[in-house]
């Protein structure tokens, strides 16, 4: 399996390297479009990283068999948070191109923006982002360190420590991730707000990470030790989880839409008007079908959930749809007249994705692929012991 990780890592290094080079060159060619494409390329991978952290915290809290087989992936994924922090720097540099509230003239002209100038302030924005990344990296690092210490099998108290640590961390994570979604995404259209946005962001992140991990798991399921312990029951649990989060995503998206549509207030309905204008309405319908109905009806059947090979296809679809969703959330903030996909909108996510996947595979190859000496799980990978 190590060779497989190595192979993917090498391939991703090439893609990422070429992508980054192309990105650097295009900065000089398409300068005015650079930052918005970069932000779009950055966000899905950032959400994937955050989703990994959320899954890790959730697993330590509820200790299900599904989390056991995903633990090393979510640890490796959340380990990338430090690098994601560095990759956020271009967004900070390009702030003036991205966020209208950085322009004093715009703020002065709008009563609403004037009211919230204390929060939407460049220095405060940077300080907050630094704080988020510091907190998230600390959580991910501590959990990973304890978990690899547990692999030695000498300290039996670590499982409990990780569980106790994850409770308050989850609370902090939810608060910081919600604020990050307001900062990074919602404030692209600074007059607009929706209170459910943070929750949608977190659920979307978990869904992205879940889809990604299921794809990786399906690819490695033929190799030992996975081939020894993975049963259709694991697949079934993961499939149910994917199903649940797909529904949850749709539920939150629908709730937001219904409330804004029926209220029809000029303060917030423009956000949907921009996203259902010519061209964008096609994307919206595509999301409705590809992000909800297709996965929903396929995952409704038990048979599609029992095999990782089948889950791979659905998870792949959801993973792609996550990019479409984020594009639909972000891009109309800049141009809602028409859908014009700039070459950079493709280069940026590929470049950052190459780096991300390369790091993920490298980290994954460095640790035993399943956690060792976890008292909660037997050799068959199923939950056998409760810990208090």
């Amino acid at each position, binding site marked *: 399996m190590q060779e497989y990780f190595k192979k993917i890592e090498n391939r991703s290094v090439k893609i990422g390297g070429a992508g980054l080079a192309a990105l650097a060159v295009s900065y000089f060619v398409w300068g005015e479009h650079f930052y918005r494409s970069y932000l779009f390329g950055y966000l899905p991978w950032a959400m994937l990283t955050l989703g990994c952290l959320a899954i890790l915290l959730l697993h330590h809290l509820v200790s299900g068999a599904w989390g056991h087989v995903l633990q090393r992936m979510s640890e490796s994924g959340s380990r990338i948070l430090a690098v994601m922090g560095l990759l956020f720097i271009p967004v900070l540099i390009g702030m003036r191109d991205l966020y209208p509230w950085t322009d004093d003239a715009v703020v002065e002209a709008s009563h609403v923006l004037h009211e919230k100038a204390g929060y939407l302030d460049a220095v405060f924005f940077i300080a907050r982002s630094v704080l988020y990344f510091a907190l998230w990296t600390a959580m991910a690092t501590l959990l990973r360190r304890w978990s690899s210490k547990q692999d030695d099998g000498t300290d039996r108290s670590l499982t409990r420590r990780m569980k106790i640590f994850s409770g308050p961390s989850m609370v902090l994570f939810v608060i910081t991730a919600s604020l990050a979604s307001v900062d990074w995404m919602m404030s692209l259209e600074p007059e607009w707000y929706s209170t459910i946005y943070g929750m949608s962001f977190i659920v979307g992140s978990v869904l992205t990470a879940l889809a990604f991990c299921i794809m990786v798991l399906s690819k490695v399921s033929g190799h030992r030790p996975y081939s020894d312990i993975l049963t259709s029951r694991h697949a079934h649990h993961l499939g149910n989880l994917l199903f649940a989060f797909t529904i949850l995503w749709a539920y939150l998206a629908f*709730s937001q839409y219904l409330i804004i549509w029926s209220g029809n207030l000029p303060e917030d309905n423009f956000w949907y008007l921009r996203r259902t204008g010519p061209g964008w309405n096609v994307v919206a319908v595509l999301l409705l079908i590809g992000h909800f109905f297709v996965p929903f009806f396929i995952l409704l059947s038990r048979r599609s959930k029992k095999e990782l090979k089948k889950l791979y296809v659905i998870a792949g679809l959801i993973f792609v749809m996550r990019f479409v969703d984020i594009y639909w959330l972000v891009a109309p903030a800049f141009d809602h007249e028409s859908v014009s996909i700039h070459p950079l909108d493709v280069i940026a996510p590929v470049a950052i994705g190459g780096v991300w996947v390369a790091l993920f595979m490298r980290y994954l190859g460095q640790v035993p692929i399943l956690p060792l000496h976890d008292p909660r799980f037997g050799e068959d990978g199923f939950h056998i012991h409760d810990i208090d």
Partner: protein
Amino acid sequence: MAYKYHVTEGENVAPLIAPGHDYATITDKISGDVLDRKTPRGMMITLAVSFLFVLVLIGAVSYLFYKGVGIWGINIPVGWGFAIVNLVWWIGIGHAGTLISAILLLLHQHWRNAINRFAEAMTLFAVACAGLFPILHLGRPWLAYWLTPYPNTMEVWPNFRSPLVWDVFAISTYLLVSFMFWFVGLIPDLASMRDRARKRWQKICYGVLAMGWRGSARHWHRYETSYLLLAGLATPLVVSVHSVVSFDFAVGIIPGWHATIFPPYFVAGAIYSGFAMVITLMIPVRKLYHLEDFVTDRHLDFMAKVMLGTGLIVLYGYLSELFFAYYSGSEYEGFMMHNRITGPYGWSYALLILCNGLIPQALWSKRVRLNTLALFLISIVVNVGMWLERFVIVVTSLHRDFLPSSWDMYTPTIWDWATYVGSLGVFVWLMFIFVRVMPMISIFEIKHLLPWKGRIYDTSADAN
């Protein structure tokens, strides 16, 4: 497929059923409590007191029908008042039953087997209490059927864009599915009761209700299938009913109501209050009937954890309301929050944060979760807090809206209070009658929790 499963009782994990029980002692204990045991004195007192409150409700409603809704404190702008506060509160309480029965079943949380019957009964009675209020609030309750769309000579149809009509569908579906779920789950136990009853009238009553159950393999097979199907049907209802209830507010455009977070925040609040009510009722009933062997401290611990988790989501809702009141940059949103905290009803907001946000944080400590008295008190605090939450949402948003000329105060009258405590009386009374005549713990399901039972064949694993 076969795989290993060990129920470990070891080290520091308590069993889900006290040692020393087997199939026979479980059936004896649970059915005996209904069939053989003399009604405990505490039970008689509770029934008598709660019946007094039932009489209070009957009195209050009779006077209401005679005089009209003017006897309540409602006015313009606060046209909803206690009626909607109580509706939402009662509906919310019902949610724990559905969550425990349906979602925890699908999630393979077997500890639920000890409390599902009790919680489902609670759901039914809570929804019944909830349904009372919108009908009473109509002013002409005998025309309540106008809410249902049916072809009529007047060609009058309800407004399908109104969430109040969605409520009619959501709540009546909920009541129906909850009732079926509860009754289907009862059938095998009703047959046990029929077989063990000694008096003829008891045999006839339980026999009729058991619908000819003989416990054959085919019966069990059909039973398991239908039970799972009903669980699947009930699961979306846990989310949909309270989401629709939240639309009652969110679809309005008043500051404090027009918030997109309302659906998930209401659902979490519903489960929060529901678990609080299960704990509030279970702790005294467990004591009265000496059920500590079946509803162990570990069960209470699990329920307390669910309460803590959902309580944190509710707290997230409060924090996000505060944050977005500022971030919206809207003077109306800002004023709404300012008025909520420092206005004439500021006391209710402060109490709400204390009851729902601060005190329940004690549940982080295992010591508190395992202290029955502390848990009981916290659960009551949460019940009060969740009632206050609805009061705050309804009254503070309505009484001062955009135009100061239309502002007014809302003061509930004695009749508001009488109807409310009366509904509490009905709820407790029905609950205790249920405990007296039906097995309050599912006899056949709790047997799965016996430690030597080993791995249960988990049908739910294959079905969903």
